[in-house]
């Protein structure tokens, strides 16, 4: 019984490790291709996706709020 359980646990652990390696590789591919290419495009088109401005001479950092009025939408 202990032996069978041990084998089962071993397989389970092995399976989990394989899954995490596969996940890592897949996410690395998504990251390099998906995020990487978008980064290059953003750089070419000079898109500023995050505003890091600090002491850039403006009088205020407030920005007007744009209300999302469709509450059924998730965006």
């Amino acid at each position, binding site marked *: 019984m202990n032996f069978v359980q041990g084998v089962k646990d071993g397989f389970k652990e092995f399976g989990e490790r394989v899954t995490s390696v596969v996940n890592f590789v897949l*996410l690395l591919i998504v990251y390099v291709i998906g995020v990487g290419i978008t980064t290059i495009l953003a750089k070419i088109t000079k898109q500023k996706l995050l*505003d890091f401005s600090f002491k850039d001479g403006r009088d205020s950092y407030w*920005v007007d*709020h744009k209300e999302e009025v469709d*509450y059924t939408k*998730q965006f």
Partner: protein
Amino acid sequence: MYILGISCYYHDASAALLKDGVIVAAAEEERFTRKKHDISFPTNAINYCLKEVGISADKLDYVTFYEKPFLKFERILYQHITMFPRSFWSFYKTVPSWVNERLRIRRMLKKTLKYDGKVFFVEHHQAHAASSYLISPFDKAALLTVDGVGEWATTTFGYAKGTDLKIMKEINFPHSLGLLYSAVTAYLGFKVNNSEYKVMGLSPYGNRTKSNPYYAKMRKLIDIKPDGSYALDMSYFVYHYKMSMPSSKFVKVFGPTRKWSDPLTKRHKDISAALQMVTEEAIFAMLNSLYKETKCTNLCIAGGCALNSVANGKLLRNTPFKKIYIQPSAGDGGTSMGAALYTYNVILGKKKRYVLTDAFFGPQFTDRQIKKFLDRNKIKYTQFKSDKELVKTVASLIKTENVIGWFQGRMEWGPRALGARSILSDPTNPKMQDILNLKVKHREKFRPFAPVICADDAKTYFECDEPVPVPTDFMLMVYPIKKFARSKVPSITHVDGSGRLQTIRRKDNQLYYDLIKEFGKISKIPILINTSFNIRGEPIVCTPFHAYRCMMGTGIDYLVMNRFFIGRADNPQHMWDSESHAKD
């Protein structure tokens, strides 16, 4: 009409249920799963809310989520794109949960609740603002929300009149006062999203003047404009692409990062003081500007920064506002309630008809349920014949150095124990801080305990605003203790002479109020120590089992559940050492 509000997947997950615009049940998920600050989908909290009113999910008219997930995911993707390739690790750690859970709210509702009805998504800061204003006593108010981050916004200000609630302006990620506070919390060796209040508690030990050498350094990190808007110098932070928070530049300027086991030095204390000063400066500037814009003297605040009770205690004295409201669960936990209220009052346009004056929205247990639990587990107990007998016995036990576990009525909503799941003891005893720490809390020496006082006695002992603001009932305001009283209540007096008091009004919790008054008759000081009823590292207790387990694993002497009275020493068979299991 039933509306369920849900908040989860970031900070404290929670659920709140409205019946015709009135809150009937609300609770944080952590209380059921026993995992502190649990962020998972709040299945248990939802089930509790539904059970409380005896309905199933198909009877819900609306379910409202506390943020717009796709908008938030957009911000996260933008972070990864901007910080490529340095953001890979954070991408690897967070993106799978977005794909599997966070972007599938409707599916989750169907799967866990079999709910297939209308689902609304309100913006995170709208939920924050609603969580305060729509249950406040005001018919109009200026609104300020400050937290770590929602979808994009980290700080917003707005105005509400009737059920018209408008956010006017905002500051967006990565600039965030909340994340600045969290970054310094991490730097000082404390747990982010958990121990920010410890940094706040440490700050009075540092130099609270501008001569503090770290004040000027801290001030360099943040540019605060005269209109209260601000920006952070992001070269001092890495939270926009890493799981950690301060950058190597921050460490270069402020010195080596403290590990949690390192001793707290003058440098750490001065840094915490500088942070608190800068935070207050930014908040006061925002509020002064908000007043100029709205010309309204009522103020509602929300967001994690609204839990900064030291700053809150100074707000009315440093701004033109005359009245303030903050709800007990001012952080993300409270946004489930805000989302539900926003749906009822703003989206559906129903009249504002509810004012929240107490925090008792969680589970409660009948005498029958408690007795059944005690009998089934062969626990020795006695039962008081009347509340009068209970109050007299417990007050005299507190006076004779006993620590009491106090379990009464519905569990509190929000992070503070407010007299439903509290540990009570004697603040006049100079040894009590050490006794409590030794027996139960094992917390950092620099943190004093919090006092509870009847609202009608507050002005005698504390230099509080007049009239005493409602948020004081939720332990959200720190005020100076009057000089004559400081030496009389040493275990609740902070190094700067302040106390984070809870005030209690008899209409909200009669038994608790009477106990404090009775203790006042015996000791001549109508104040008790009130600290949260939990084992270190665990959430506040919820059920009789949790309460009993907590007493038996710590040094709490007696447990009072409704009128049941249980002595730890009478039940040696169940004693255990919670400290050997404590995680925090």
